[in-house]
């Protein structure tokens, strides 16, 4: 928050995306109905996930692919590294995938002596900078054009140029040959179609298409909630995904991959692998309330409208998934210890629910996670500068609850607090108060009245 330039870049970019989304849905009257339909499809799919996944696996193998199941990140990396080393891979081209970020796959490949090369522009820039993405669909949203030009000058010796085109050109020149050289293509998955065994990948740059068709071996990695029943469902999601994400009617590219290259076909990999990842998702599935978070199609709309995300930025969330959806799923995926503060970093304004294409009730799920964090950690520190220890907070809460269970105690506590407040007041307002330093640094507190409403009512 302290970096004003970052702040401006972030709020401009998110506002632009937010406005484009609003515009796109305003011009698309059936959008609301499709959102309801998308939610129904998701609910049905997630409620019958085991059936959907086994059907997907069966069909995927029937069309020539190989399915691997990974209960956690370690297993997923083991599978992918195993495939890569068996094929003596040196270079892997990657197209953007939040799931591989979640697994920490790029580092694992590097450690094994395989160069992972990000091919999506934003992700490519982030990789050069040695950073992590700060947004689900715009990984470099926190960087300005100048930041990127400086970075390329420093790391690649690329001459600075005022043309935005130049950055794209730089990436293109460097990446083109890599696509041809790579032994391995690694991608994410937007939708995996159970009925046909197809993988659907949605993108704007065309790199996913190259990464998945040029190398000899393609490994697709998906969170297990990405399965959908059939192509008709895909058509519903495609009409709201890009609109929610960027305000486009449709992304520039939609690839539907059904099996590896067949004999006689010119393009496509010889081998196609699908790694289906759980990595904590079954915990979300098992929770009656949180199950809904698996409906997420990773469009980023909730980030773009969130007042907290706009000011804090994606990196403040400390993990791959930022924004409201991150605050909901991270405590379960990472454990309450690592993500305890996240559900509390929200004013519960609910703007995210208004724009979620599948209408996930994000504010209610945040409340649900707050309760879970409180129950799980009696010693957790409260986020923010008023960092009481957990037990202090708990004692305060219990005292408050006791007072509020008694009309008499409530009346007394109110009089006492108003009396103390009145001592700090001058000119009808309080400018400082013990224990509320940070709150009072930008706001006055009203001078408490001599008598409460109930005291005045009694006197009538």
């Amino acid at each position, binding site marked *: *928050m302290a970096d004003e330039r970052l702040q401006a870049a972030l709020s401009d970019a998110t506002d632009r995306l937010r406005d484009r989304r609003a515009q796109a849905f305003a011009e698309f009257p059936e959008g609301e109905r499709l959102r309801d339909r998308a939610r129904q499809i998701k609910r049905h799919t997630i409620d019958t996930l085991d059936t959907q996944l086994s059907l997907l696996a069966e069909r995927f193998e029937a069309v020539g692919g190989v399915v691997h199941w990974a209960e956690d990140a370690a297993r997923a990396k083991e599978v992918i590294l195993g495939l890569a080393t068996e094929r003596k891979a040196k270079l892997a081209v990657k197209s953007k995938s939040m799931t591989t970020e979640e697994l920490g796959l790029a580092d694992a490949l590097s450690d094994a002596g395989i160069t992972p090369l990000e091919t999506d522009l934003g992700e490519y820039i982030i990789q050069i900078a040695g950073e992590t993405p700060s947004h689900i669909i715009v990984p470099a949203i926190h960087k300005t054009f100048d930041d990127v030009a400086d970075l390329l000058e420093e790391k690649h010796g690329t001459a600075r140029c005022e043309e935005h085109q130049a950055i794209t050109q730089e990436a293109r020149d460097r990446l083109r040959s890599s696509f041809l050289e790579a032994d391995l293509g690694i991608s994410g998955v937007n939708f995996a179609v159970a009925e046909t065994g197809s993988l659907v990948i949605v993108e704007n740059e065309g790199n996913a298409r190259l990464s998945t068709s040029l190398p000899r071996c393609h490994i697709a990695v998906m969170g297990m909630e990405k399965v959908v029943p059939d192509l008709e469902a895909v058509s519903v999601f495609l009409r709201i995904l890009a609109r929610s994400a960027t305000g486009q009617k449709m992304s520039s590219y939609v690839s539907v991959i059904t099996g590896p290259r067949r004999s006689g076909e010119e393009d496509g990999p010889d081998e196609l692998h699908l790694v289906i990842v759980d990595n904590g998702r079954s915990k979300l599935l098992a929770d009656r309330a949180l199950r809904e978070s698996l409906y997420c199609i990773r469009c980023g709309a909730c980030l773009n409208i969130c007042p907290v995300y706009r000011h804090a930025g994606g990196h403040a969330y400390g993990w791959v998934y930022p924004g409201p959806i991150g605050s909901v799923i991270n405590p379960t995926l990472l454990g309450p210890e690592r993500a305890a503060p996240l559900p509390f970093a929200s004013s519960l304004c609910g703007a995210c629910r208004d724009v979620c294409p599948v209408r996930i009730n994000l504010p209610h799920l945040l409340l649900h996670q707050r309760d879970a964090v409180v*129950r799980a950690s009696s010693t957790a520190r409260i986020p923010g500068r008023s960092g009481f220890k957990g037990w202090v907070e708990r004692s305060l809460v219990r005292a408050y609850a006791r007072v509020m269970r008694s009309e008499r105690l409530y009346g007394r506590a109110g009089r006492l607090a108003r009396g103390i407040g009145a001592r700090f007041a001058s000119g009808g307002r309080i400018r400082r108060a013990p224990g509320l330093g940070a709150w009072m640094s930008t706001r006055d507190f009203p001078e408490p009245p001599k008598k409460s409403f109930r005291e005045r009512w009694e006197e009538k």
Partner: protein
Amino acid sequence: MACRRRLSLADTALFVTCLVDQLFPQVGEATVDLLEQSGCTVAFPSAQTCCGQPLFNTGYRAEAAPLARRFIEIFEDFERVVTPSGSCASMVRVFYTDLLRDEPEWARRAEALAARTFELTEFLDRTSFSSGANLEARVVYHPSCHLKRELGVDEAPRRLLRQVRGLELIGLDDGDRCCGFGGAFSVKLPELSSAILEEKLKALENCDAQFITAADTGCLMQLGGALSRRGSGVRAVHIAELLAGRVAL
């Protein structure tokens, strides 16, 4: 108003909220005026304290539940319950059934009470009430998040404000964006809350308003507190005070 004191004759219970009770009694009084103007007989069940929202919102469900049960016992015999706060109304209307879901009998009672609990502007908008207030002023209406998004009440307060003679409603850039209060959020993460508030204030400074009004004292404390700190001429007032004609230039 002798009958006011006799709960048995009243059809409408005022749920005043802690903030209004302790800090803004004039808002409670304006609310009573408005309810009486709309033809209600108002009672104030004095056993009422806090509805449990601060505890529920900070994750202390178990501690909030007894307060919810207590609230239901106090209010369930009235024909209706009205409160001058969107977030407190949504606590009772939306969250009580969830909070008490493991106790079927209480959940049922919560649901029955929820159906009879209203936020003030939402209620007035359903009656034949018409504000007789006069105020020649430029006013921004701030839609409180819980009122707008949990209760779906957005047009009612604007319709009521338009009844005030001389009052000009002004739109704000990104007007429906949160003010950053969020109750405990503003105490736990005061800098973040202030940063969100800052944008609201900037928009307000650019629009030449004399008043900002809302149907929730929480937002008004946040907005009014910052306006006061800056020595701004814009005043934050509760919508009940405007509608009851208790605000002068």
